[in-house]
């Protein structure tokens, strides 16, 4: 069992506000790791540090290390473009480009040098199928992604990330806007993907975490309270707070 991402003593600040406090965690390779915790506890913040998306927000800073593939991703030697290519991401709030559905999916592959129309078509089809969107949109790939329903947009963003075939896939509440059917399709997909990829998923659904994840991390107010095998966490949490949260007695 090898470690894909190793986070050591990570602190993270928005300006003066400390959003993450001394996080230490080892994300295992080809496993699904779920982040749970109440809204505002720092899940998105943490998942965004892993592909350095937080770089793009003014006034943020961090201390500590995030070792990926043997290297601190914040070290100057690391090419952030390369990093993000390998560590893909699905955002909490769907953010499709104001382009056609097709262009949204091929955006990444095109940047990375795939030019052949037939190849791109192929990618669009598989990615949309994987994201359980193909049937709904196959006849209108040219219409604007902004005219999709909320759940469709979310699936499009998943497809867009899948099209990149990343090494690690960070998903921030990928099924929040999805109905049970679409959700279970995405969950199946995650199941399949974990043979090849390492997956980190933020979810506020205990059931979902229980169903699909191998490991679960519970966050509270910027702290990593407890981390371990999902079955263990859900059956016999060590920390009182974890137990309270999982059983719904929290707060």
């Amino acid at each position, binding site marked *: 069992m090898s470690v894909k991402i190793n986070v050591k003593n990570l602190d993270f600040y928005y300006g003066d506000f400390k959003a993450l406090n001394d996080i230490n965690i080892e994300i295992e390779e080809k496993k699904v790791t779920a982040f749970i915790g109440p809204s505002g506890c720092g899940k998105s913040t943490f998942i965004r540090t892993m592909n350095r998306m937080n770089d793009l927000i003014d006034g943020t800073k961090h201390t500590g290390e995030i070792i990926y593939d043997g290297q601190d991703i914040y070290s100057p030697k690391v090419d952030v*473009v390369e990093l993000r290519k390998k560590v893909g991401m699905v955002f909490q709030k769907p953010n499709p480009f104001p382009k056609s559905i097709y262009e949204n999916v091929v955006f990444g592959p095109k940047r*990375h040098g795939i030019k052949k129309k037939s190849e791109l078509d192929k990618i669009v089809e598989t990615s949309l199928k994987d994201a359980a969107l193909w049937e709904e949109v196959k006849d209108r790939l040219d219409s604007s992604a902004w005219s999709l329903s909320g759940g469709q947009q979310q699936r499009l963003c998943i497809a867009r990330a899948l099209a990149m075939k990343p090494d690690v896939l960070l998903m921030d509440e990928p099924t929040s806007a999805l109905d049970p059917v679409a959700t279970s399709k995405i969950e199946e997909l995650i199941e399949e993907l974990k043979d090849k990829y390492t997956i980190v998923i933020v979810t506020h659904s205990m059931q979902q975490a229980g169903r699909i994840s191998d490991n679960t991390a519970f966050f509270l107010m910027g702290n990593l309270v407890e981390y371990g095998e999902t079955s263990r966490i859900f059956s016999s949490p060590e920390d009182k707070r974890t137990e309270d949260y999982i059983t719904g007695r929290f707060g």
Partner: protein
Amino acid sequence: MTDNKEKKRRRMKEKSISTILLVLASLSIFTTIGIVATLSKETIAFFGEVSIIDFLTGTEWTALFANPKFGVLPLVAGTLMIAIYGSVVAIPIGLGSAIYLSEYASDRTRKVIKPLLEILAGIPSIVYGYFALTFITPILKIFFPTINIFNALSGSIAVGIMIIPMISSLSEDAMKAVPDEIRHAAYALGSTKFEVSTKVVIPAALSSIISSFVLAISRAIGETMIVTLAAGSTPKLTLNPLESVQTMTAFIVQVAKGDVTHGGLIYKTIFAVGMLLFLMTLFMNIIARMIIKKYREEY
């Protein structure tokens, strides 16, 4: 997967793009250096001959006459008057049209009207000059019988009309760029179009809107032809728009195109006036920047 060579190549490409863009951006620095250098040399020479205090506080400007007096205030007053009254005309109309086009008009209407208004920016300023002289002034005369044939008001109005599209077009674009989600949120709270426009869209686009004001006012300050034709060329320390005035630019053009020996004192005055103008616009920009910073809403 990209191999190392490709990675290097890509990084090189990124690096060179950013370098090229940096070079392009610094061109404007060189322009400014050029302008400041050009202006400074003669300005310093000018202040060797005329006291800077007299220049800045004097109330009489008769640079081109026998026994010249170099009190720049009348020119400054003329310039400010044109800029202020011009803005008084252009800002409400420009912003109003922008709001109309962005929030009220149908897409079709907008696509027709916007380019039409932009024609206003393309009409040569000499046309505005004559328009002011032969059309606006006679109308003004009905309301103000004592008005001078050449007067700041009519020039300002013409300048204002000319800069309307700067404000209307640029502001309209900025408003259009505000995401619809935000608008929808406001409508869902039972806001009227007026409220959505003034409380949500304008604040969100404010930085661009103020920039458009600054661009337009800059253009008004820099405008020469209209002013020379319609506002006279009489430097006068007044804020009465019914009188004829001279602006700083009008003075510069008058001398620069005129009958003056290179290197003489009068020649140097245009650089001193130019320098002052430069500093004035700088001041205006700094203020505008502070305003933008204070009120900017990022989305």
